[in-house]
């Protein structure tokens, strides 16, 4: 089966859902959500039947689309993320409807599912992009869809404010990206990544200033999506204001696909050692500052969603540490494994946050007090998620950090590893704050007499599956490691 059919089927299905949703106003909207889940699962199973002769990067379609093993792996990753996000969106729909300023109830909430599918298709295209033009177009598809999703709760001022901040800063990052691609094209004459790698091997060093300028601008644009140092200011506000499923999607899916693009661009540059040493130096600086900034800013937070936002900046810092040590051969697999671990733990954390936020109406840490007594299963799930994010052994997050740190040591980035260890120490503090709130602090009066938190059955199944896989892959990381090329 031709690999372009994957995204084509997904996009056509999303259009079908959109049209049916527009023409049919009587069906409850969550049926569209479940239809979207079914469609995404079908495409996930289709990825196992991709024609392996087309998986060669050289057989790419006019150099734009390459479905090699890394691309197929990330497509499956993004499809899994989308399934989780769709289930979360179905659970979150009542809150969403409350903030939509329309007269008919249930109107305006069905598009969220189609938008998630569009963003998923865009990220799948990002995973197999081999050309700067394709990277640009797919990144823009994802970003523009996210503008709509972040500002979806039109009656909620926080959501709109987050949307505007995301919009303006995202537009600046897009224009930086485009300007960088323009300079790279002007200097090298081509926008295809494999050709750029070939030309860079034997290039005159008098062209370095313009090349560094171009690559610097492109990294500035990418580091916006990745939440790296100079451009991470949008992350706390946007993550806090956006609807929780959208925040989960942003933090896992958008970051992962931006990292795939970063890895591909870095690979194309590696053929020239002078150029790459300068750029890797810059990357390691950015990684160190990002780790410090993310961890130190998360310490005084009192809002759990904002704390998770700052922690995702810190995780982006660890991933960049892996990217900066690309000279050691195994940093690619390390980053891929870390992203899998991040997927499981982050989705679980946001999953519990969604339910607690829905029942108490706010995401502050004080609302987690006494959760251990009220719903022990939820508290256990959140404990597991948070410990995995912190990197405790026997959770899947531990192995992620282990592989990244070992590849950084192999690339001799000792200062960076030191900063990373400092960051992990800070991380333990603010992650354990949540555990303390759940198990040690007593609940306030009105919370202890309110009813236990209700979760729908499929949602509970998703949370249980995520928790189990967190522990299983924490003691036995082989299955995931075998999937990575």
């Amino acid at each position, binding site marked *: 089966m031709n690999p372009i059919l994957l995204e084509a089927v997904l996009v056509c299905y999303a259009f079908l859902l959109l049209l049916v949703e527009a023409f049919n106003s009587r069906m409850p909207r969550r049926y569209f959500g479940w239809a979207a889940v079914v469609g995404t699962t079908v495409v996930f199973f289709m990825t196992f039947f991709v024609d392996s002769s087309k998986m060669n990067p050289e057989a790419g379609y006019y150099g734009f689309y390459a479905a090699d093993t890394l691309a197929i792996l990330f497509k499956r990753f993004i499809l899994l993320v989308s399934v989780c996000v769709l289930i979360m969106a179905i659970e979150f729909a009542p809150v969403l409807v409350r903030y939509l300023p329309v007269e008919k109830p249930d109107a305006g909430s069905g598009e969220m599912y189609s938008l998630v599918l569009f963003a998923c298709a865009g990220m799948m295209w990002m995973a197999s992009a081999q050309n*700067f*033009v394709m990277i*640009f*177009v797919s990144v*823009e598809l994802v970003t*523009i869809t996210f*503008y*709509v999703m972040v*500002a979806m709760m*039109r*009656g909620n*001022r*926080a959501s*709109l*404010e*987050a*949307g*505007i*901040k995301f*919009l*303006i800063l995202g*537009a*600046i990052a*897009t*224009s*930086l990206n*485009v*300007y960088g*691609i*323009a*300079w790279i*094209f*002007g200097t090298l*004459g*081509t*926008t295809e990544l494999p050709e750029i790698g070939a030309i860079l091997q034997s290039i005159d060093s008098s062209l370095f200033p313009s090349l560094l300028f171009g690559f610097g601008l492109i990294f500035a644009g990418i580091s916006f999506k990745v939440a790296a140092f100079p451009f991470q200011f949008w992350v*706390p*506000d946007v993550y*806090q*204001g956006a609807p929780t499923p959208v925040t989960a999607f942003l933090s896992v899916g958008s970051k992962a696909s931006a990292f795939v693009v970063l890895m591909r661009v870095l690979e194309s540059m590696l053929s020239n050692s002078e150029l790459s040493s300068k750029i890797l130096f810059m990357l390691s600086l950015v990684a160190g500052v990002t780790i410090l900034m993310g961890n130190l800013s998360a310490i005084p937070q009192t809002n759990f969603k904002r704390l998770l936002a700052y922690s995702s900046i810190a995780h982006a810092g660890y991933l960049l540490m892996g990217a900066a040590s690309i000279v050691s051969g195994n940093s690619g697999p390390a980053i891929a494994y870390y992203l899998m671990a991040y997927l499981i733990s982050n989705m679980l954390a946001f999953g519990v946050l969604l339910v607690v936020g829905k029942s108490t109406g706010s995401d502050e840490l004080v609302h987690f007090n006494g959760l251990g007594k009220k719903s022990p299963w939820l508290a256990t799930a959140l404990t597991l998620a948070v410990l995995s994010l912190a990197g405790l052994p026997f959770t899947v997050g531990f192995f992620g950090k282990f592989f990244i740190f070992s590849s950084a040591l192999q690339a001799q980035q000792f200062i960076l590893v030191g900063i990373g260890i400092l960051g992990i120490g800070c991380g333990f503090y603010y992650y354990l704050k949540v555990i303390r709130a759940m198990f040690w602090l007593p609940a306030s009066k009105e919370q202890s007499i309110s009813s236990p938190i209700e979760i729908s059955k499929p949602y509970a199944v998703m949370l249980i599956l995520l928790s189990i896989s967190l522990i299983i892959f924490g003691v036995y990381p082989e299955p995931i490691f075998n999937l990575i090329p």
Partner: protein
Amino acid sequence: MDIANFAEASATLGHYLIVSGLLFGIGLMAVLLRRNIIILFMGVEMMLNAANLSLVAFSRFHPVGGGPAVDSQVFLFFIITVAAAEVAIGLAIIVALYRAKQTMHVEDLDSLRF
């Protein structure tokens, strides 16, 4: 750039790139310094069009085969399209914000504090 032969100098690649860099800088200054959200958006559009200008300049001054390089011209179309889509969505969000908060100034967006 030879100032002595001003009357006979033709526009080289450097001239176009400097103009495009200036446009980019002006757009960036507009985004950083202005209060009105719509002016910020105009600055962003200006930055995108500065990149367009440099792409066209590269296309003309680095000809491939018989004619100008076509890759960057195709990329240019995509940039224009994406800019239009971004503007459509951005203005929708700005309209929704105006209806909710009756303000057009960036400094009034302060409900998401540290």
